[in-house]
């Protein structure tokens, strides 16, 4: 457990020393979201309707943007080998790294989303549901993404390949996440969507670090 905390602290420290990378993904999120009204037109009713989908798709892309970095630096400088040789199970260390990724790449999106939601004239209730769905959904993105990042480590054209592998797997998160807000806006209640999102998160938290670890071991061979 100490090693888990150690790697979490190290990754957070590294992210703090390289704030620009974190901020780039956030700006990307903001710009993508802001492009939609410009492309579609400023009609408020329409914007309100597409807002959950737009925000979720943008969050998906922004979270994916930072996935490349998840293991790449550790792979390059040899830290990954040291992690694999640690007496602590590699799965636990991978879990620590994924948590750090979520704290630096996912959580900022959750906090920024309501501000961007205002651009789309979402009600405060819808904004709350949006934040809640992102809060449950973004860790899911980090977990699934870790598998893709581990698989494409050191592979030619890894970045594009990563999106091809990971985006189809993100679809359930997108459907339930954006669906939660839409269902609530339609007066159907977001409870079902959110609990399914939570169930998916629990499932991924259990399996994804394991799968990512297996992929990392293949890369290290």
């Amino acid at each position: 457990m100490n090693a888990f905390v150690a790697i979490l602290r190290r990754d957070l420290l590294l992210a703090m020393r390289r704030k620009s990378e974190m901020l780039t993904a956030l700006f990307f999120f903001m710009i993508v979201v802001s492009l939609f009204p410009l492309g579609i037109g400023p009609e408020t009713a329409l914007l309100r309707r597409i807002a959950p989908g737009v925000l979720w798709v943008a969050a998906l892309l922004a979270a994916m943007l930072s996935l490349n970095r998840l293991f790449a630096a550790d792979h390059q400088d040899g830290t990954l080998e040291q992690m694999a040789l640690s007496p602590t199970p590699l799965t636990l260390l991978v879990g620590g790294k994924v948590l750090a990724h979520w704290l630096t790449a996912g959580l900022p999106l959750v906090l920024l989303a309501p501000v961007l939601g205002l651009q789309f004239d979402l009600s405060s209730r819808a904004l709350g549901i949006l934040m809640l769905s992102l809060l449950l959904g973004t860790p899911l993105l980090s977990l699934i993404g870790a598998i893709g990042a581990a698989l494409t480590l050191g592979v030619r054209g890894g970045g594009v390949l990563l999106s091809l592998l990971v985006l189809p797997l993100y679809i359930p998160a997108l459907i339930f996440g954006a669906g939660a807000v839409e269902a609530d806006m339609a007066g159907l209640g977001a409870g079902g969507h959110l609990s399914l999102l939570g169930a998916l998160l629990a499932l991924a938290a259990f399996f994804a670090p394991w799968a990512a670890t297996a992929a990392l071991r293949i890369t290290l061979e």
Partner: protein
Amino acid sequence: MLQAHGLACVRGDRRLFSGVDLAVAPGQWLQVEGANGAGKTSLLRILAGLSPAAEGHIEWEGRPVAEVRDDFHARLLYLGHAPAIKDDLSALENLQTAAAVGGRPLDEATALAALRRIGLKGREDLPSRVLSQGQKRRVALARLLCGQARLWILDEPFVALDVGAVDMLCGILDEHIGRGGMLIFTSHQAVQLQGNGARLELTR
């Protein structure tokens, strides 16, 4: 004691080596030699348990490594080609986080003492990106002074070191062997270590 029998390594279509036997007992060192591409690094990675051998098996204290993996890794210190140094962390932070991630937290006094001994006095708190290649190597080598690992597997530890540092590292290795430690390393340089040693030439 580390023993290996009939190790073979295949990379893609090519068979790098096969039928490699070796044994390293406490107080012994083994220098692995061979031309570029002979598979020195691959052999060390196989011995460390990072990659599986195509053939053969490895024993630690008389038992297959696969069975005693955690115990083996708790007693192993492996330094590869890449120094595992983060550019954004200082030498001290690098040393401490590496130890903590390895499951052996390190107090600051020990880490500072190690860095000073390895010749980085006054540079402990500089971000590693301003250090030279040789100084980064020294940060990595400082790990040798911090742990209680019995078996050291070092891939080209003398690379990028100046003459003084080579002597110092030889001293550190001698000490380790004198304490009853085990050492396996590769080097293109002719190194004179004390104690009971052997050389292994990798040929096709």
